[in-house]
């Protein structure tokens, strides 16, 4: 699973090759990370907690998009539409039928899977650009359906959703949300990592590499593509459901094309073809607007920029995405790997010849 250390290849069994956590040091780091994640809400303030919740929420969708684009190599420009589908399914089920949390979540997942199938069908005939375009078109259709619902049922400003209740205990506290989202994000990451080291994940990587060769190797290309779409869309739709509950509010305004671009940005900035990249990219993309705001306030421009803050964000996202595409196509994860290699190989600059 992980790359062998710089000094050589020391694994003695195939199980070790597949293990998610390889060495004792990694296990220790993982444990330390779990403790830190659990202790975070105790130590952090309200604002930091809100940021953490946003990061966790976004990371689910980002990992889902990474599975599709980074591993299976299928472009999707419709991820905002999918989030909208999940959120609206939740909104409609709640508003029309008063459905509780444990109905709306699987409901959203089912709708996501169905849309994934529809999103995926064009991929059987189309490649590259054409696929990107068809997902873009589906984005507009889903958003339109949401708007139709809003206007037809008189929720023109959006649908208000009560916090989810489990056994009389309502989930409306940021700390409680933090743990729910942490579990959801961790489950998504674990699920993705496990899927990627299974037959399905290997098939995805094969069709990413070259479809004709994958087919020659006996991989059912159509099934692999469809499964990539269905898995990614289901996860994204679940993220949309959580998003709806977290905000307590669903409105088609929230799911603009910019949201899709933000998710695409997480994938590019994080580094294509890496779950770690999706998470690093999420941190970057969620925190960037706040960093800009803080910077503007520090320079003394806070007042003047507050009216056009979205325009500043747009421009900044555009610039950062271009910078990564041109100068660092491997993304943050590429930088991370180089830093790692630098320490591993020190005092050498590169792997000695013959290794």
């Amino acid at each position, binding site marked *: 699973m992980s790359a062998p250390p710089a000094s050589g290849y020391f694994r003695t069994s195939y199980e070790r090759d597949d293990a998610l956590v390889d060495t004792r040091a990694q296990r220790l780091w993982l444990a330390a990370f779990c403790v830190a994640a659990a202790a975070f809400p105790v130590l952090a303030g309200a604002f930091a907690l809100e940021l953490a919740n946003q990061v966790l929420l976004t990371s689910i969708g980002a990992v889902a998009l990474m599975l599709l684009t980074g591993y299976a190599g299928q472009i999707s420009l419709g991820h905002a539409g999918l989030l909208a589908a999940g959120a609206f399914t939740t909104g409609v089920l709640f508003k029309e039928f008063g459905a509780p949390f444990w109905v709306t979540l699987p409901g959203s997942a089912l709708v996501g899977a169905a849309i994934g199938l529809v999103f995926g069908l064009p991929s059987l*005939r189309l490649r590259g650009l054409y696929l990107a375009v068809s997902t873009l078109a589906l984005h507009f259709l889903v958003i339109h359906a949401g708007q139709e619902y809003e206007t037809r049922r008189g929720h023109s400003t959006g649908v208000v959703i009560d916090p989810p209740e489990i056994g009389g205990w309502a989930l409306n506290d940021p700390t409680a949300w933090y743990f729910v989202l942490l579990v959801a994000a961790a489950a998504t990451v674990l699920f993705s990592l496990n899927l990627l080291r299974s037959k399905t994940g290997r098939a995805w990587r094969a069709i990413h590499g070259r479809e004709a060769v994958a087919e020659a190797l006996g991989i059912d290309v159509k099934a692999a593509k469809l499964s990539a779409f269905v898995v990614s869309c289901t996860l994204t739709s679940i993220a949309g459901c959580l998003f709806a509950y977290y905000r307590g509010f669903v409105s088609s305004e929230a799911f603009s094309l910019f949201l899709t671009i933000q998710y695409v940005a997480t994938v590019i900035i994080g580094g294509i073809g890496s779950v770690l990249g999706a998470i690093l990219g999420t941190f970057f993309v969620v925190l960037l607007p706040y960093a800009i705001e803080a910077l503007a306030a520090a320079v003394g421009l806070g007042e003047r920029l507050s009216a056009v803050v979205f*325009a500043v964000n747009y421009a900044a996202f555009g610039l950062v995405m271009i910078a990564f595409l041109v100068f660092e196509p491997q993304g943050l994860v590429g930088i991370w790997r180089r830093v790692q290699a630098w320490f591993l190989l020190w005092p050498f600059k590169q792997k000695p010849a013959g290794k």
Partner: protein
Amino acid sequence: MQLAVNIAVLAAIYALISCGYVLIYRVSRVLSLAHGELMMLGAYGLAATASLFTGHPLVAIAASAVLALLIGVLVYVVLMWRMTGESVLAAVLATIALGILLRGTMTLVFGTQTRYPLEELGWTNASIAVGGTARISAAGLVLVVGTATVYGGLFVFLRASRWGIRMRAAGQNPLLAAQRGIRLHGIYALAWGLATFTGGMAGMLIACDAGVESTLVTIGLKAFPAALVGGLDSLLGALVGAWIVASAEVLLINYVDPLLSDVVPFFVLLAMLVVRPWGLFGTREELDRV
């Protein structure tokens, strides 16, 4: 009758915009998703030159047209040449990033208020009667005539001029064209320049008719289905596609539901992708090689 006029104007808008998509795609196999923003930049360019050259409307128009051409070349020289030879995904993502960068910058520079370049030029948008009951705005009429001229000009340029023939060669087989001494970077830059010029023209004319604001980008995106329905590498296709999409949109809005305006082109697009992904006039084998 009014419906027919509306269809003609909308088709002209879509055709003028979508020929930019086609030019860039046909020559360099890159889909420019920043086209809507570049179009809007053209419109803002006209508004800026109009206030700069007050009292000289013709100078302002000429200046903004040259500006649009230069911006297109600049986009290629600064950004897109780095994406030449990269994967399709990287190039498309670069145009998306460019689009969002432009959108933010334009809002910062020009503000969020709607601007009316026609008034700044000192002209009024007269309403002209056509065949009894129907009416067309002067800007709309210029749009239809302008689109026809642009397509005529492009046709002659691509068929007869030296640069046009080089452009077609680069589109057909870039490697062979480069080995025969055609400077690909120059050709690609020209394609971007022409595409931005025509897109900018569309933006300017729409701005003259209805003013410029941030929603102009949506029109740019809605013109894309027109290009694809006709076939992404065929100018004639873009013209026919624009007619189909515009008719579908105007008729459905009129007889079914005005809210459908934003989705009709994408419905048409999806239908086309399912039935005949390479478009009405596009070349089929191109698609399988992507």
